[in-house]
């Protein structure tokens, strides 16, 4: 709640301090929740848009992670006749993409690039780095690894895994992909992977990589000396080997770039969805030591966070 107040005050200050705001473009800012990454992205967006000489007025709507609030929020946006909707997070993005087709939408902090292809009025920046980039990092950090294990639920990640198998093949890697439909299957599937996989690639997945499964997966990793390439630095802090992390502020700025183009007349459909352009990474040296993995010094020095 306190975070929401701070965020609202921040935006109000922006509106008040901008002379002539009444004539500026109107942007609806719909955020899935007020976790720190959303705040950083909002800050990056504002900063970029401000630097471009635009002085839009903002209306912040925070869903607070509650799906039941989306109906009310959509009504508000529809009535507000905004020039642009800046949506952050899957909850916000999916809601506006589904319900609004006559207002341009720029979205950010969504896990799946598919969410940004749901209509001609939407574009944005996903949280997912390109597959070839992710695999090249595996080759850089764990050069001896040839077989990459991954567990996923087909409902969420079938297409992504199909693409990943091809991408890995092109890079001389083998993806050992195992489906799970319930979290109960995860221990058996991990057991199966323990014999083949040299690294476990953590794909965001609410079944296979849920918060509840984090502990068994990380313990499996330590027991079997199979490093986990994690979807976020939080996992690295807990015991995964490394993660490629987004610079959320920069994702906001990247969205800001797209928003400015749209406000200047570009069609969102003409702007292809993008991946985050800045790659940060976190390393867990404790895990590296336990698994007897030699991480080159320059990689250690370049890490945004080491644990």
């Amino acid at each position, binding site marked *: 709640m306190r975070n929401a107040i701070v965020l609202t005050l921040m935006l109000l200050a922006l509106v008040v301090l901008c002379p002539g705001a009444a004539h500026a473009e109107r942007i609806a800012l719909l955020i899935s929740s007020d976790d720190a990454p959303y705040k950083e992205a909002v800050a990056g967006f504002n900063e970029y848009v401000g630097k471009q000489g635009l002085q839009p007025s903002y209306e912040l709507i925070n869903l607070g992670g509650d799906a039941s609030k989306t109906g009310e929020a959509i009504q508000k946006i529809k009535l507000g006749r905004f020039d642009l909707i800046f949506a952050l997070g899957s909850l916000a993005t999916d809601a506006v993409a589904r319900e609004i087709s006559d207002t341009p939408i720029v979205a950010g902090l969504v896990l799946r690039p598919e969410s940004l292809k749901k209509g001609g009025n939407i574009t944005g920046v996903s949280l997912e780095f390109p597959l070839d980039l992710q695999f090249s990092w595996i080759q850089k950090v764990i050069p001896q690894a040839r077989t990459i294990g991954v567990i996923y*639920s087909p409902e969420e990640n079938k297409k992504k895994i199909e693409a990943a198998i091809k991408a890995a093949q092109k890079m001389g890697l083998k993806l050992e992909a195992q489906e799970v439909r319930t979290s109960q299957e995860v221990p058996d599937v991990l057991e199966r992977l323990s014999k083949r996989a040299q690294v476990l690639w953590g794909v965001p997945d609410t079944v296979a990589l849920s918060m509840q499964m984090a502990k068994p997966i990380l313990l499996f990793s330590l027991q079997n000396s199979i490093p986990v390439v994690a979807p976020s630095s939080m996992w690295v802090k807990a015991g995964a080997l490394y993660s490629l992390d987004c610079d959320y502020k920069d994702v906001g700025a990247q969205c800001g770039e797209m928003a400015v183009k749209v406000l200047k007349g570009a069609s969102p459909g003409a702007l292809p969805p993008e991946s985050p352009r800045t790659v940060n990474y976190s390393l867990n040296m404790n895990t590296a030591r336990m698994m007897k993995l030699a991480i080159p010094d320059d990689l250690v020095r370049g890490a945004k966070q080491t644990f």
Partner: protein
Amino acid sequence: MNISTVNKVCFIILAVIILPPVSSAQDQAPVMFAAVSEESLLFQEIPSVYGASKFEQKVTQAPSSVSIVTSQDIKKNGYRTLADILRSVSSFYVTYDRNYNYIGVRGFGRPGDYNTRVLLLIDGHRTNDNIYNQAAIGTEAILDVDLIDRVEIIRGPGSSLYGSNAFFGVINVITRRGRDLKGTEVSGEAGSFNTYKGRLTYGNRYQNGAEAIASGTAYDSKGDRLYYPEFDPANPAADPRATNGGYSDNSDYDRSQNLFSTVAFGDFTLQGAYVSRTKGIPTGAFGTDFNDARNKTVDTRSYADLKYEHGLSAKTDLTVRLFYDYYQYTGDYLYSGVINKDVSYGTWAGTEVKLITRLQDMQRLIVGAEYQGSFRENQQNYNVDPYASGLDDVRRSRIMAAYLQDEITFSKSLILNAGVRYDNYSTFGGTTNPRLALIAMPTEKSTVKVLYGSAFRAPNDYELYYQVPGLSVANPELKPEKITTTEVVFDQYLGDHLRASVLGYYYKIKDLINYGTDPVTGLPQFQNLEEVTAKGSQAELEGKWANGIEARISYTVQRTKDQLTGDPITNSPAQMVKLVLNVPVMKDKIFLGVEEQYMDRRKIDAGGYAPAFAITNLTLFSQNLVQRLDASVSVYNLFNKEYGDPVTLDFVQPTIRQDGRSYRFKLTYAF
């Protein structure tokens, strides 16, 4: 519980396995894609696993009471053998007659039983031999403890899955893999009694996915100079063989060589192991000449195990195992200077096929079959010079078995584990053993298990066929021993770092094999004589903190009863207390391990009691203080407590004195 009750339980288990479970649609539905929580996968804090027990889930959801001892525990506490490891866990105790170590579990520890009532597996390979069914846990064990990744100690009857010997429990040793070494490791140690040990191990996992480990160990101990008043000529009640002032010189020696290797590639894993151990007998056991270093036993054991593991579908895994095993025992026993040789040879081979499948996302079904053919089970006894044969017994046998186990997850908080196995022996026929476990998790941090199971121990060749004219008579009609156990286990996590466990059990053993008298000859003969019941409970508190402190304290109380006499059985301590404490002296670098073991007094075969004792062991262990070097100093029996272990009536000593204060210094270097 009588046989018809066991049959009823088998019927219920089969019904449970065959009939699909009734469950709500909600339970069966997969977790749906929930947009609201997607980003939280990236943004939410995840608890660190460094302070957690690596095998927590295995312990809480297993259909048994389980303890796990890891390679780190072995290093931090200076465990030298599997016997040391077992001494440290609750409800287990070990006695030593200065030749072999004997396991006691839940108040039942029969000296001289060669651990036939416990099944010892190495990576799933059964190591109990085909002559004595011995589980070797001392220096004669086939695996150097330095090659252990972890030991899973599973209490209670396990015959529903593993067949014979899984009577009181199963000890499943998981070995280190190539990936755990990623190079070469050399280790050397020196200790009291002129004891030295050296080991060279290489292991790696290669880019093509192949993985290998190979290791060799040599161990040599001169042993202690031991004093036995029973053999002191100055003692008016001394044995007629008394000599040398009651001292046994140069007879406690212990030498062994071990080889071990595992190679894995794709779906195949090939493992081989070998040990040869020579141990002097310093005790004058079996009426042999006292203080003659020629009294000795040589145990040689080896095996090769080829395993094929393949995922047949997303939910079904197939495991096929082929194995070949070898065992040879030679005992040299001196009687008035004449060497009597006691020899046995065993070779056996077999296969196991196992299918694990997940049905309806909530049933985990294991179906398996085993075949083991023993094509050599030979026992001989003869005097060398002048030659005289007492026994030359040549046998073959086979075992066939099939089993079924189903783990049904009714909901997140209720699991039913039901299993049944049928074994058919060419010797005594068939036996069926069920196990039923209901595991409830009323809260995220609590687990209640209610367990019932039966198990059996097949009579071994020694009990069936060993006879020496004029001394003992064979009994090929022996039936298997049977045990039924009922158990309740309660596990409770207290905060993030403490786990409390309380359990209570009751068991009944029927047809227990022991020496009786052959009604025809009047000579000793193994017979299905006894019936034993026992009840006991165990409380354990275990803590693990992120700062590296680890502690485990347990209290066991148990009462056994020989149904014929109404008395407690021998070598059965009524109470045991164990403490294991590991404290980091320097973070991640130096650890202090303190162990305290208290054992209540134990009744002995010869009459009377072996007094209660408490011993303290201390280990200071450092890792990477100097890069890649591990070093440790251990002091065992720190306060030099004098105590003895009960032994069989084959000894004139009622108890055999154990080592006083002793030391070990160990260095391990990895490169």
